[in-house]
């Protein structure tokens, strides 16, 4: 089994590997290359690495210029500043002209931890999801992160890859297919289906293990692509199971939970609940403490599932 590592490290390594086979790949960062781990690419391909300093709006605009010139720019900074501060640049200079720009934005979600609410991006998926033509990947482990990077590079048009900071275990395999827009069923079950993304996939699997000991058979779906969302798997699960639960390290407004709700609305009678950040800002703390405080642990998922089954 591949080693545990931070998704940002997996991202940085994947970029460097991609750079060795694709000389059109350029990487742009905003003074965070040692945090986003684009520093690996920078040291191997200094001519194709561009630091824009603390000027995210300009970096995003410049990325459009690279894309219009035939390059494949990967833009990196923290998720909050990439999707937030440069939002309108992404909208008008990238998404609207369908520029072939890839965003690999790290330090997403509450799992940033101690830096606190100002740095915890809990709305980035919502912001990117509303942009026409934007593809959104939320990889769950280092292996999937690498696949997301290569998939993004091989497709045309803007892609957002949401990268988390913590070191995480590998829960997928090299052989697991990564098809954009096609969710992976990680565990079969017929009572309830937990649809999770990113770090919450791991917690969903733990919850499912525990539920099975109580006689509840929970399916777990790894929704690695939030947009385009895999409607087929959602509707199929809603038909097979009594209830659907979503789990994400993001606001329940506009993220995975919303995306799944939009698919289910009017088309399913399955019971439904969204686990995520309930319309609140984060705060400082260790990631594990934050997950407990905001109800994102395997125990929380299990509890919600049991409540929904009653």
């Amino acid at each position, binding site marked *: 089994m591949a080693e545990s590592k931070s998704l940002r490290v997996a991202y940085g390594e994947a970029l460097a590997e991609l750079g060795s086979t694709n000389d059109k790949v*350029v990487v742009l960062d905003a003074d965070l290359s040692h945090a986003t781990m684009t520093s690996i690419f920078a040291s191997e391909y200094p*001519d*194709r690495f*561009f630091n*824009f*300093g603390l*000027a995210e*709006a*300009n*970096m*995003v*605009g*410049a*990325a*459009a*210029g*690279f*894309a*219009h*010139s*035939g*390059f494949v*720019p990967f833009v990196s900074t923290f998720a909050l500043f990439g999707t937030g501060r440069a939002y*309108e*640049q992404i909208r*008008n*200079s990238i998404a*609207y*002209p*369908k520029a072939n720009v890839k965003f690999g934005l790290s330090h997403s979600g509450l799992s940033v931890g101690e830096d606190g609410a100002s740095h915890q991006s809990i709305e980035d998926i919502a912001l990117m999801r509303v942009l026409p033509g934007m593809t959104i990947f939320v990889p769950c482990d280092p292996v999937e992160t690498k696949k997301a990077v290569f998939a993004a590079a091989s497709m045309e048009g803007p892609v957002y890859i949401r990268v988390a900071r913590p070191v995480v275990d590998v829960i997928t395999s090299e052989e697991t297919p990564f098809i954009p827009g096609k969710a992976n069923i990680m565990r079969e079950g017929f009572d309830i289906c937990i649809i999770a993304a990113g770090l919450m996939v791991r917690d969903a699997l733990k919850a499912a293990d525990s539920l099975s000991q109580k006689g509840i058979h929970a399916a777990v779906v790894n929704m690695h692509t939030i947009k385009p969302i895999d409607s087929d798997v959602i509707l199929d699960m809603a038909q097979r199971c009594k209830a659907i639960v979503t789990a994400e390290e993001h606001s329940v407004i506009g993220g995975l939970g919303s995306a799944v709700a939009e698919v289910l609305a009017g088309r399913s009678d399955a019971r439904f609940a969204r686990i995520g950040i309930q319309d609140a800002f984060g705060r400082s703390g260790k990631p594990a403490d934050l997950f407990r405080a905001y109800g994102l642990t395997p125990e929380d998922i299990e509890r919600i599932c049991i409540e929904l089954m009653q």
Partner: protein
Amino acid sequence: MDTRALLEKSKALRMDIIEMLYRCQSGHPGGSLSCLEILMALYYRVANVDAKNPGWEMRDQVVLSKGHGCPALYAILADKGYFPREDLWHLRQIDSHLQGHPDMRKTPGVDVSTGSLGQGASVAVGLALAARLKNASYKVYAVLGDGEIQEGMVWEAAMSAAHYRLDNLVFILDHNGLQIDGPNDHVMSLGDIVGKFAAFGFECRKVNGHDIDEIAEAMSDVPEGKPLFVLAETVKGRGVSFMENNAGWHGKPMNAEEYSKAIEELKGTHHG
């Protein structure tokens, strides 16, 4: 094309601008008329472009960062044969490829989609960096409005242009002194514009923004190792007496009387 012929052409293009804006009853006459000669200097003198091959990879790139001035750009692109002149009369209409602000995916000859002020400056920086990475000799010209440089992003772009010593990049400022709410310095003082760009690391030049020869001359010898900034002093609404130096004509539709008066004036003008 000699200076005399260009002067005649500028009158015809101004009439096209008035005609298309009158027909669609919306759009921005003031800033279109002020940036016309800047764009003419680029498209008829300086920029190496080919109307028969708009996507030619080695063409010079023109970014109209002040995208609302696009009627001037559209009139020129039609004149150069990028698309039929007839298309101009459908500006801003449903199903027209001529959008209210430039759209690179719809209009042949538009290099970059713009309209949200400030962004074209940064896209131009990216284009210039990409040209260098390709070892290509083409240049990138960005036309900015003076109100536009109140956007902080323009200064982020300026900082990076100087940092990366982009001597294949030119910023041209259409400085007509007016923006929607009034004179620049009433709305938000621009101060010493040339001094600011010089301090950011640009080679700076100042020209009469309605003198095509002078504008082209300012871009003919480009300094090595630094980006070029050309401040073009212009008149908002240039060529139509009642629009000149009048912020009210930033984005106002003409009535029939105003339209006839504008066309009559342009038929008789001998500016320059």
